[in-house]
């Protein structure tokens, strides 16, 4: 039985996890190879650029290896790993200066992402860049709401903001993104 979205079986995954528990480097490397590329996309979505994303991923994988004993084989390993990555991204976000957080939405954001307008649709790379170009608070809220399926109440608790701020950030994020996708939306309508 193959693990969802990967090319390894559940049995192989269990062997790899057991290997990681014993600090076996080849198992650690294999886990990284299996999940690294998907986690990279996740980290890119939560970061403003590739360098930051790689730092988040580095921290996340290290944390995973150190705490792999806490994985109880209940639920998916990937889901557990995603949570670790998201927590690392959130820690980085919280650790940044308040100034960074309070970047207000300006025309620049619309201009910046405006470069990605395309009549033939956007590829994944461009979509990631669109998300990365969002103000940090908007990016966080958008990712947590859209990709992790969290409620505003949960997001507000995580980011230490009010529910209203969370909703407002989501609205702003969507407004920016909608502009970029407008060409595609016209086709859809």
């Amino acid at each position, binding site marked *: 039985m193959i693990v969802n979205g990967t090319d390894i079986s559940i049995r192989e995954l269990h*062997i790899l996890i057991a290997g990681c528990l*014993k600090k076996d480097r080849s*198992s650690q490397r294999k886990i990284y190879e299996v999940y690294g590329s998907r986690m990279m996309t996740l980290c890119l979505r939560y970061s403003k650029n590739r360098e930051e994303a790689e730092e988040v*991923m580095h921290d996340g994988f290290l944390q995973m290896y150190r705490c792999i004993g806490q994985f109880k084989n209940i639920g998916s390993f990937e889901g557990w790993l995603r949570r670790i990555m998201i927590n690392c991204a959130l820690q980085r976000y919280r650790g940044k200066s308040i100034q960074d957080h309070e970047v207000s939405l300006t025309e620049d954001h619309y201009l910046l992402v405006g470069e990605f307008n395309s009549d033939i649709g956007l590829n994944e790379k461009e979509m990631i860049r669109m998300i990365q170009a969002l103000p940090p608070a908007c990016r966080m809220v958008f990712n947590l709401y*859209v990709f992790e399926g969290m409620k505003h109440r949960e997001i507000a608790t995580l980011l230490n903001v009010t529910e209203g701020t969370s909703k407002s950030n989501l609205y702003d994020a*969507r407004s920016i993104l909608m502009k970029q*996708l407008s060409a595609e939306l016209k086709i859809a309508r």
Partner: protein
Amino acid sequence: MGENLHNHVDNRLRESLLLHKTNPSENVWNKIEDELEKDEKRITIIRSTRFVTLALCLIIFSGISIFRYWSVKNDKPYIARPLQNISIKTPLHNISGKTVVSVKNPPTIITKPEKNLISKQNILLEIPDEEYTMANLHFPAVQGNEMEINRIHMNQVKQSNDFAIKEELLIHQDKKSLGKKFSFTPYFSHEFAGYNPVDHDTRGSNGKEIDVQQRNVFSASAGVYFNFKVNKNWTIQSGVSYSWANSYLDSSKSYAVKDYEGNIQFKLNTNTGYGYLKPSSVVPPNIGDSILTAKTYSQLHYLTIPLVLSYNISMKRFSLMVGGGVTFNIKTSGMLETETYGPGYPEKEYTVNILGLKKTNFGMILKADLQYHINSRIGIDLIPSFKNTLGPINLPGALSAYPYNFGIGLGVSYRL
């Protein structure tokens, strides 16, 4: 409409990106690996620090014990006072009002009734030839209402005004009962085992390279020491123990070679020996073909007979035996457990014997035995030890392995 547009944006991005893969740069893994190596070094340092701390504590404790032992020995002698003769098996409490005592072998006991016999552990003996000296009772055991005296060390005693005592050092041993010189100590020892490899295959990959892949895990031994007390200070220890050393080998490649019967099999090399893996494919492999082996679990079991000479230092209820000696090790089993996979070869689990091992080998042992005497018969032992083989455990080949281990054992001593 606005809500629909928002949902469209959400869905469009979610569908595109949720399962999208982006390759991270190789640099990320390199950094992670560096950090993991630092972690492992930190853990090794912490473990080593613990071991060194324990060893230091033991040395300091031993030093204090030796210092106190000599201090007590060279202390001002006990001044004897008017004494009262007590015949053998006469209950002491009738005289001292302290403890009921029966004495097995000494002919006559003279004690100080006003002193608490047990707490002081001092007693005066009347030697049959009427020379009086003072004895220091070791390990008086209170059993019900009886105190049994097994060993008596005589101290030098000066003359007192009240009582003439000859100034000499005497040692009283219970020579009548040989059994009292014997004790035995069953024990269990948690061990850290490692291998010192010597590479004879400097050009190939069958030598010391294997050592890099091998990781040692929990090892242990259990057995029993038989102790024979030669005299006050020296003890000969022997016995038997069963030890098991486990280790893991990281996943690696095994290459097809001809085995000793001419069959082509995959050879799995480890630090301690090698094993042959029968190919899982229908088509036999060619020499030089390779297959991937998952993590390999290696188990080595030995029966060990030690012979140790130890020096004893006693201090009230504690005694320390420090000694060294040789061990004769007999291999009882050696197994490799692994799994293979690779293109053209279905997954297969193996449990094979380790080949290329000597059946017997000699080793050396250094050990200490810190004993706390609960009573005259039973004691609790803490036994740190270091063992190393005097020669390689494997037959001549690409790699010679000299195993060593540090162990901390716990045991219980019983004196006959």
